[in-house]
């Protein structure tokens, strides 16, 4: 395995005393080992990229560094001195600041108030030192090249500016180490450029930046070194200019595609769903009519995989097709040769299209209802002729689904909120199967599900397609996508940019296409 050879290389030495040194870091959650002997090092004036697939342990490692998890194994040294942070506040006082994806600013408070929130400088007697605050804030904003009125409410500014205000907030405490977690996920091109300029400035001031991103382009543009984690283990650290991109991607996704997936025998039938120039809804709910829209077709019994980075438009496409955004889209969708109008979830369910969203707590389950009632919820008309409920037939149907999907519950009357993640996910699946769908839209069907339940869901997908149900699948787990999908479409910025048959798809090809290359 290439990563083992690479592993034997020593970490390229840093020019001077490292700002941060983490060594032998281990962490266990509820008996599950999520980090094992991980090391990481950050030098002053360096942008160090921390990379890895979802679940590789990046965020756990960063939460250890910034004091969220005070209970870990291993050692952290800050400028050579061993430290152990008890809380995020503690880490912050030692000069470690985190810039989150969604910056937590209070929109109605002014920029100054946000910058000093929670640690307002006070004069004697507890009076706020407002003029002092403003002077200090002005100084830092100037230093960042931010020309804005610091008295304006933070909510008036774009996400990019808010992110920079967040950085200004970090700098007021002389942060030496700044952790940026996918800072460009919500930014457009010019906004990202401003951020990159700012990062260059911070570098020049000798601060260390830990940069988490999935975007190859910016990783290579900004990064000095990169550390790759996979499955909670340290894979390697290398200087980015010396690291070929192919090698880097192999470190990231390099797991052997083993037999954790059941064999897939596809027998696609006639065309089931035909989508022509379908406009993607944008998150605000109105339709974003730029470009030609999305065009593809799915056969009966086929699993069509969708790959793409966060924000590529996959989930929006699914929501739009299901009618969750509520607008009519004309005749751009044909289901079994007849026009299908994505107007509302009720319409879609009546016509045999169901959507499993990627957020089962947020919009998949009703936690206060029993397992049986969640299973029958979307098909309740069947169990209530003329409006009167038939509890007995509900229980029978729920019991059938429980046995078919192997849902482990003490009783079908148990509240679904009390079940484990895997069982909850099976309940959501059972709910949609109860509507007798012809097309299943599955958005991250195995998110937050343990290995055993994952395997059962894969087998279920095989069984369903064998009966002629078409499945559209979004998954951010590359091995899952390669093992399950008969064909894979790759989306980038709301457009389909590549299509691969399962026989020719490789993680590298998909990763390249997903980054728009």
């Amino acid at each position: 395995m290439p990563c083992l050879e690479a592993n034997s290389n020593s970490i390229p030495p840093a020019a001077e005393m490292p700002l941060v040194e983490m060594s032998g870091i281990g962490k266990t959650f509820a008996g599950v080992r999520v980090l094992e002997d991980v090391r990481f090092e950050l030098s002053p004036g360096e942008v160090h990229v921390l990379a890895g697939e979802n679940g590789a342990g990046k965020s756990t490692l960063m939460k250890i560094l910034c004091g969220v998890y005070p209970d870990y194994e291993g050692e952290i040294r800050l400028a050579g001195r061993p430290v152990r942070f008890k809380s995020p506040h503690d880490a912050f006082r030692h000069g470690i600041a985190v810039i989150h994806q969604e910056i937590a600013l209070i929109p109605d408070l002014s920029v100054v108030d946000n910058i000093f929130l929670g640690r307002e400088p006070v004069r004697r007697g507890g009076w706020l030192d407002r003029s002092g605050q403003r002077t200090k804030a002005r100084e830092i904003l100037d230093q960042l090249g931010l020309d804005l009125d610091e008295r304006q409410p933070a909510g008036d500014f774009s996400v990019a500016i808010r992110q920079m205000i967040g950085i200004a907030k970090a700098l007021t405490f002389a942060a030496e180490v700044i952790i940026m977690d996918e800072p460009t996920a919500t930014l457009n091109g010019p906004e990202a450029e401003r951020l990159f300029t700012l990062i260059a400035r911070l570098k020049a001031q000798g601060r260390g930046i830990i940069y988490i991103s999935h975007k190859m382009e910016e990783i290579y543009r900004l990064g000095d070194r990169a550390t790759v984690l996979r499955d909670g283990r340290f894979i390697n650290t290398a200087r980015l200019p010396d690291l070929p991109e192919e090698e880097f991607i192999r470190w990231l996704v390099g797991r052997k595609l083993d037999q954790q997936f059941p064999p897939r025998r596809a027998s696609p039938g006639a065309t089931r769903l035909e989508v022509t120039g379908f406009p993607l809804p944008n998150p605000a709910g109105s339709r974003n009519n730029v470009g030609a829209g999305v065009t593809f077709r799915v056969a009966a019994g086929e699993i069509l995989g969708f790959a793409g980075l966060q924000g590529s438009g996959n989930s929006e496409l699914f929501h739009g097709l299901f009618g969750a955004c509520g607008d009519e889209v004309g005749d751009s969708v044909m289901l079994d040769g007849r026009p299908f109008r994505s107007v509302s979830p009720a319409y879609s369910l009546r016509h045999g299209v169901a959507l499993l969203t990627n957020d089962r707590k947020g919009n998949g389950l009703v936690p206060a209802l029993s397992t049986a009632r969640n299973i029958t919820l979307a098909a309740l008309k069947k169990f209530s002729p003329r409006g009167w409920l038939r509890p007995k037939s509900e229980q029978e149907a729920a019991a059938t689904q429980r046995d078919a999907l192997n849902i482990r519950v003490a009783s079908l009357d148990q509240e679904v909120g009390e079940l484990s993640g895997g069982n909850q996910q099976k309940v959501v699946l059972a709910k949609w199967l109860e509507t007798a769908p012809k097309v299943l839209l599955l958005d991250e069907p195995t998110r937050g599900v343990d290995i055993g339940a994952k395997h059962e869901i894969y087998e279920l997908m095989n069984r369903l397609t064998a009966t002629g149900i078409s499945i559209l699948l979004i998954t951010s787990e590359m091995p899952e996508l390669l093992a399950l999908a008969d064909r894979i479409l790759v989306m980038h910025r709301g457009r389909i940019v590549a299509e691969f048959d399962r026989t020719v798809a490789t993680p590298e090809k998909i990763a390249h296409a997903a980054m728009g290359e």
Partner: protein
Amino acid sequence: MKSWFRHPFARAMAALALVLLLGFIFNADGAFFKWGTHSDMYRAISVYGILACGMTMVIIIGGIDLGVGSILGLSAVLFSLLAIRQGWPPWMAIPATLMAGAVCGLAAGGLIARFRVQPFIATLAMMVFARGLAKWISGGQKISTVIQKANGDFMNVPVPAVFDQLGAKILHGNLAVVTVIFLISIMVCWIILTKLRWGRFMYAIGGNEEAARLSGIPVWAMKLLAYGLSGLFCAVAGICQAAQELQGDPEAGVSYELTAIAIVVIGGTSLAGGRGGIGLTLLGALTIGYLEKILSINAVGEAARLMLTGVIIVGAVLFQRMRK
């Protein structure tokens, strides 16, 4: 605690039992053991209880209805106007009043369901509006059987029979008709919430509105239904109130919404929506009713009574929330 105590019904029963125990101890020289005390309490709590029926559905669907007291007042005035002044027969006056109440509820529900106005705001507006409407159609006067003629003289019209019938007691004066109406309201809500598809939809919407919407549930129609039914129950309560007072008072029902909410919450229905039931509301009504009654037969002054009621409501709710 035993596992049975985790069941909300058991906890509501425990709260009621606690209040009853108070009654046994402070029984005011045996007054608590007389049936008359109890039947009187049932009559007194019935109007509040009817309001609480509609309120239960609204709260289960994840909303709140502050308009119930005002709609009650409006209904009482309208019913008196129609039955006394206009001389409409009950089979016309009652449906007309019910319709008016339902329309008020639907108007608030429409604002909430269609225009996404927050339930608190929409029903607060309805509370103010309906009160104003009640004062406008009554000219600010109580609508009673005493009518001022054009020349300034007063004349008495006979009390319509329907007022006597609704305000009466049956079973040899042992049970008020309004109490029977309250129990029927409970039954209707019980059927809607547990036997009909509508009820399941209400729980689902209150439990997770977005999940309900994506499951194809007609969310806005169900909200209209819940608020419309709440308005309808307000009209029922308003008619009962007018029958008991033999007049339609435009000031009737002021602050009743708070009592109705207290009844629902003390029963154990969650203000967050999605959990609770009408059986709990019945227990809540009894709890609040007995509490009031026990304090009054022990001649606790009004000031102390209000303070004690406040303390006991908080106590009962905390007691119910206790786990393990």
